[in-house]
């Protein structure tokens, strides 16, 4: 029986009078690929931010990897983000004046110490062995997203969060990134929570939940 990596109970997030996430009960077993769908403003990114320790819940309980997120101090949250989570954004947020390998090393630096050989190996794993010394502007959108994936997995996270990682990519690149994530998950056995608008992308997950106005309205298992 697989262990639960994410467990929420009545998880709520308010921004003033606006309730972005209404009491949410969710369990995600370790190793699962969970897709989160919903319209804009449905609370997808709020949920992702809470899971990644980027934001704190207003109410309810949230346990990720056995950690009670509300009990964590700012330092604890920072350590959690550093060691437990990898995040891939729609906007790549790569540092424009650093090369691909240096961008990956930057994540190592904030985690512990940089190691160029390991960063190079990570880029080779995502098929960018030939683009190590290129800056983001010299890479295509798909390649940039693969650098982001290398950056996200370099610290061996238990939980990989994706916020519309293929939102800016064409169809071919989207498939390539999805294939890569699938392959890496098989090797590294991390859990993926991916927010997307795209039902095709959501279908790569094991399970999809649908949020509407901050409420979990539906969930369905993907037929493999």
């Amino acid at each position, binding site marked *: 029986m697989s262990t639960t990596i994410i467990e929420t109970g009545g998880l709520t997030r308010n921004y003033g009078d606006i309730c972005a996430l209404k009491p949410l009960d969710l369990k995600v077993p370790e190793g699962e690929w969970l897709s989160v769908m919903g319209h804009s403003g449905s609370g997808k990114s709020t949920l992702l931010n809470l899971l990644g320790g980027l934001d704190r819940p207003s109410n309810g309980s949230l346990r990720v990897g056995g950690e009670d997120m509300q009990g964590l101090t700012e330092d604890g949250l920072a350590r959690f983000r550093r060691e437990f989570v990898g995040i891939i954004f729609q906007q790549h947020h790569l540092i424009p004046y650093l090369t691909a390998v240096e961008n990956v090393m930057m994540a190592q630096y904030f985690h512990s*110490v940089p*190691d*160029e*050989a*390991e960063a*190079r*190996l990570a880029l*080779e*794993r*995502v*098929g960018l*062995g030939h683009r190590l010394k290129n800056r983001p502007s010299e890479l295509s959108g798909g390649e940039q997203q693969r650098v982001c994936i290398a950056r996200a997995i370099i610290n061996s996270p238990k939980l990989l969060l994706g916020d519309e990682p293929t939102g800016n990519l064409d169809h*071919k690149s989207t*498939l*390539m990134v*999805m*294939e*890569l994530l699938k*392959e890496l998950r098989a090797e590294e056995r991390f859990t993926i929570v991916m927010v997307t608008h795209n039902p095709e992308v959501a*279908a*790569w997950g094991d399970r999809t939940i649908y949020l509407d106005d901050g409420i979990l309205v539906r969930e369905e298992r993907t037929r493999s």
Partner: protein
Amino acid sequence: MSRPLRAIWAVISSRATSPLVIGVFLLIYIVLAFITDDTLIALMEYTRTNVLLVVLLALVPLNSGCRIVKETDRHLKLRRALAGKSANDPSGLFDESVALPVPSSFDGLSGRLAATGYRVRCTGGTLAAWRGVSIYPVRVLFLAGMFCLFAGILVSLTTRTTHRMSVIEGEPLPTATGGGGLVERITLKTGAGPILAKILTMDVAPSDSGDGRKVFGLYPPSLYRGYFVYPRYIAIASIIRFSAPGGQTAYEKQAVMNIYPAGKEDRVEIPGSPYRILFSMIQPEDGSDPYVTGRITYLFKLMNGKEVIFAGSLPVGGEFVRDGYRLAIPEGKRMVITDFIQDYGVLLVWGAAIFFLAAGCIWLPVTIFLPRREMLFVSAPDNIHACSRSEGGGRKHGGVFHEALDFLEAGMADRQPFDGGSAEK
């Protein structure tokens, strides 16, 4: 090797021995500093006369020699290991070693290491990779320098003999055993280089004892019959004739006058009388050096006790007569007060300086630009033994080594990197 011998070897070849010995001498220096003001001289004297301290000091060159042997042995073992010729476990020679419980081929690995700038050699079940230049030759040079320096100090302290002699133009070279060649000429010239202001040479004719013609300069000092000829001071050897009124005091003697450079005073006591004469050299108006030109004019002051009787000047070969006093200087020869020093430790210290200089010149660029990094992978039937070392630290090398280990364990030699996927679910 028996146990006592092993213990002795461990002590004399330990890296801690030399600093400890130097520390002991430092402590003795500090203790002596409380007792005397001339501490360094006292320490040298004390060491020279104390067998225990001589033996202790001898430990430093001995230790340096043993270190050379030990480090050479280690270096050769390392080379053999990297060449895949060592039958022994090489772990002790490296900083890090690890056994990977996966048999694997080195095919992909050699290419990867070569791509990161390592030179790779694959022999049988061994893969060695290295880059940079070993610090070993620098260590040997440094240790040789230490050996020479302390052996030189030891030899100097225990065997140095010094004879201070007056080398006078036109007279035989004084030596400890006598029979030196004739000093034909002493020349003092103005130096042209950045270091010496004056250049002194002493030309010595062949002697009856079989010594050849010699020209002694200032530096490096020349050897004469096993003695270094070390010129110390310049002086004038003058014959002085003096007589006082009444004829009771008559004096003639060759006197050594330490009156160089012009203006410096020296005095000659007239034995058995209250007279003494203060001499100095007059500085010629044209600015020339009287020692160089040989045109020496003496300025003298005849004194009876504290009372000055008269003063005047007198050239070489001249005579001064007044009130019944007669002073003549028929001869004034160039002269050099010279130390004849027998001390072969000096050669060793010079050698040490060369060794240290060479070591420093190699060490700096090697450490900065070409630090040595080594890796060794030895394949066994059920595992791979991997070792790594880097001179002067260097985490980057550690990263490459660990990546190579990851690569081997993941069996990635046989695995292709991500090629873009099948684009199908």
